[in-house]
């Protein structure tokens, strides 16, 4: 047993309201620099949708992540042979147009325009060339645009769904969607680290944060290809790649990362997980069907005396073990088994977990005969051909799960590597918590029925209360259990980041200038 600690995250998708506050907090702190304007280390996508960069999940385009063929797990688009022979020209590198051309507006024109008959306008200009541009895309260009042909219909996760299933999904007012906030997953088997020819990317042993050493990066740009989540970005101005740093200067100071701190919906949880590094290799080589089970197997019980002893042997700080025992992430992922990793089939073992959304999926759509209605409506208004009914009534609880607006297959493709039973299991638990809490607070559900529901979902009343507390009532200290970094004993590496704000790079002591 090789016990290590990892700061890991849970995002509760049911609570995400899609406000993008996290993205803005991150942008203001880290990526408002030249060359980084297009980067969104944290972004929020509307699902179904194509995301940022466009269709990032489609690895037939971007060749990200690991693939298993002939029993061997290799990087899909990078790796030793492919990375070194393609070093002069990376055929799988997304270019800036796959993200969007960063832009601003000529606001000064609004006040400085000479007097005239027309209102002055602020024209959009490119942040690269400074020339006026027509904005074609932005980081959340398809925000709330589920059901539109350009975006939602192109979601790579839809490829397993039949035409009829897709139709059902998009029927109801063409507006069934949820939000998917994404940051770097700080994986246990990071493809970016494995792909970096110059060895600039590394995982920190103490907290598992994956970082790019800006002094060692040589712009071979393989990490951009290799990361299946497209969370490693190339700074075109400095000639260095950059990625989410999990706000490590904040974490080391005991503060929550900016995106999590600012989260309006309080969907984000951060805590320590202890894991067994010796199990990683077996897990990434596993079959896709059991990949998630093996992934969760790596995570250890922080209360187990054997684990604690092994952790101490490995030099994990007592304070970190203590934090692991109170970790909200451990509760969601292991104790309650409510959270799943995003696209586990990429085999990077992501350490950011998602609680699948329940609210947008529980109503059903039924086909009805609306011809009578149509005849009445036709002379008055437009032609009425909507033969679908949005049905929120449920006769029995689980019956609806199979006919929900979001086919299980869709969420399974996103969060469980195709395993529909896993998603169903989470939904049952989420629903059981609601029924249990309704029994407690409203009291219109009989004890027998509530207990039966809990039993079928496989959780106890105490667990349901715990889930309810951490989901709905949790305070700051419950959501973010950050172990002390003990940086008081480490060498002072960083200046106050504010001092070098606006410069290239962040917080590094010498003034940074682009190479010649």
């Amino acid at each position: 047993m090789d016990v290590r600690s990892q700061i890991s995250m849970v995002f509760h998708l049911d609570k995400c309201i899609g406000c993008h506050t996290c993205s803005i907090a991150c942008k203001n702190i880290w990526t408002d620099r030249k060359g980084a304007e297009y980067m969104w280390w944290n972004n929020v996508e509307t699902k179904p949708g194509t995301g940022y960069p466009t269709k990032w999940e489609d690895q037939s385009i971007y060749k990200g992540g690991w693939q298993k063929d002939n029993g061997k797990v290799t990087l899909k688009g990078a790796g030793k042979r492919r990375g070194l022979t393609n070093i002069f020209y990376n055929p799988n590198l997304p270019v800036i147009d796959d993200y969007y051309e960063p832009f601003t507006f000529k606001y000064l024109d609004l006040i400085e325009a000479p007097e005239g008959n027309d209102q002055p306008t602020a024209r959009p200009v490119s942040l690269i060339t400074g020339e006026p541009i027509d904005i074609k895309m932005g980081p959340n260009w398809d925000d709330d645009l589920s059901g539109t042909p350009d975006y939602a219909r192109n979601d790579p996760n839809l490829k397993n769904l039949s035409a009829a299933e897709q139709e059902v999904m998009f029927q109801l007012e063409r507006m069934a969607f949820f939000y998917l906030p994404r940051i770097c997953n700080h994986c246990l088997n990071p493809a970016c680290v494995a792909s970096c020819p110059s060895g600039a990317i590394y995982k920190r042993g103490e907290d598992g944060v994956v970082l790019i050493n800006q002094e060692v990066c040589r712009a071979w740009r393989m990490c951009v290809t290799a990361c299946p989540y497209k969370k490693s970005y190339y700074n075109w101005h400095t000639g260095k790649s950059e990625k989410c740093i999990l706000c490590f200067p904040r974490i080391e100071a005991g503060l929550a990362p900016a995106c999590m701190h600012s989260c309006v919906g309080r969907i984000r949880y951060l805590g320590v997980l202890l894991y067994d590094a010796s199990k990683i290799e077996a897990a990434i080589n596993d079959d896709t069907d059991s990949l998630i089970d093996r992934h969760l197997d790596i995570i250890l019980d922080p209360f187990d005396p054997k684990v604690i002893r092994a952790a101490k042997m490995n030099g994990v700080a007592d304070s970190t073990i203590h934090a692991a025992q109170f970790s909200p992430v451990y509760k969601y992922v292991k104790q309650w088994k409510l959270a799943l990793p995003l696209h586990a089939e990429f085999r990077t073992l992501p350490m950011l977990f998602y609680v699948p959304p329940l609210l947008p999926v529980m109503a059903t759509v039924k086909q009805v005969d609306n011809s009578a209605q149509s005849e009445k409506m036709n002379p008055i208004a437009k032609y009425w051909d909507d033969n679908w009914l949005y049905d929120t009534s449920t006769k029995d609880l689980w019956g609806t799960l199979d006919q929900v607006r979001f086919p299980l297959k869709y969420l399974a493709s996103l969060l469980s590597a195709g395993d529909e039973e896993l998603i169903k299991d989470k939904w049952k638990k989420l629903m059981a918590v609601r029924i249990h809490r309704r029994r407690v607070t409203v009291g219109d559900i009989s004890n027998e029925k509530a207990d039966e529901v809990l039993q079928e979902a496989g959780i106890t009343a105490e667990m349901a209360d715990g889930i309810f507390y951490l989901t709905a009532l949790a305070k700051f200290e419950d959501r973010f259990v950050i172990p002390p970094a003990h940086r008081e004993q480490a060498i002072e590496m960083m200046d106050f980041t504010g001092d070098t704000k606006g410069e290239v790079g962040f917080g590094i002591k010498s003034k940074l200038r682009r190479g010649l």
Partner: protein
Amino acid sequence: MNMLDNFFLIALPYIAIAVFLVGSIYRYTYKGFQLSSLSSQFLEGRKLFYGSVPFHWGVLFLFVGHLIAFLFPKSILAWNSQPVRLMILEITAFVFGISMFIGLINLLIRRYTTPRLKFVTNKMDLVVYLLLITQTFLGLWIAYNFRWGSSWFSSLLAPYLNSIFVFQPDTAAIVPLPWTVKLHIIGAFTIIGLIPFSRMIHFLVPPINYIWRPFQQVTWYWNKRKVRNPNTLWSLHRPKNN
């Protein structure tokens, strides 16, 4: 003429090599952030293929070829002793030279016709392009007109370069050579001298280590196992935790 010859064939090489060594080591040690290939593929990812790939493979082959002829002139002469083998070597090298030349022209056109690239281009880039294009053109010219280059490089230039490195410069064999050849030598040392001041420095940091390093890299601030071990001397390794 003698003074000019002495300057360009003796002084310039020493200046160039000194500047190259001091400049590169300084930049590597103190300006690590500036060491980058400064790839512009992210801003323009289509035309680059027709420039970067032929140029880089060409320059890589020719650099290694010149290096081998300098380090092992006898083996090159031995290889060239049969006309067929000489032809194979000369034609291969010439093809790589053409590939490098075409690549450079494509890169130059790409850089100055793509609006976005203007903003990641500086004056030194133009200097580098023009210098490399001139140098490649001279090389092709020499290879075509003064045959067979691989043989006389090994017997004339290798001893000259060797004399530079052992600090006993001997230009006797070089002075009578045509001016195009001398220009090629001057160009070569100018390029070497410019390496620390241009993006060419990225050729000093090729990712060779990647071939044998493990895929995953985990870094600790300090050795935590050791710190936890009670036998570790506190005076040497203060316990950093708890």
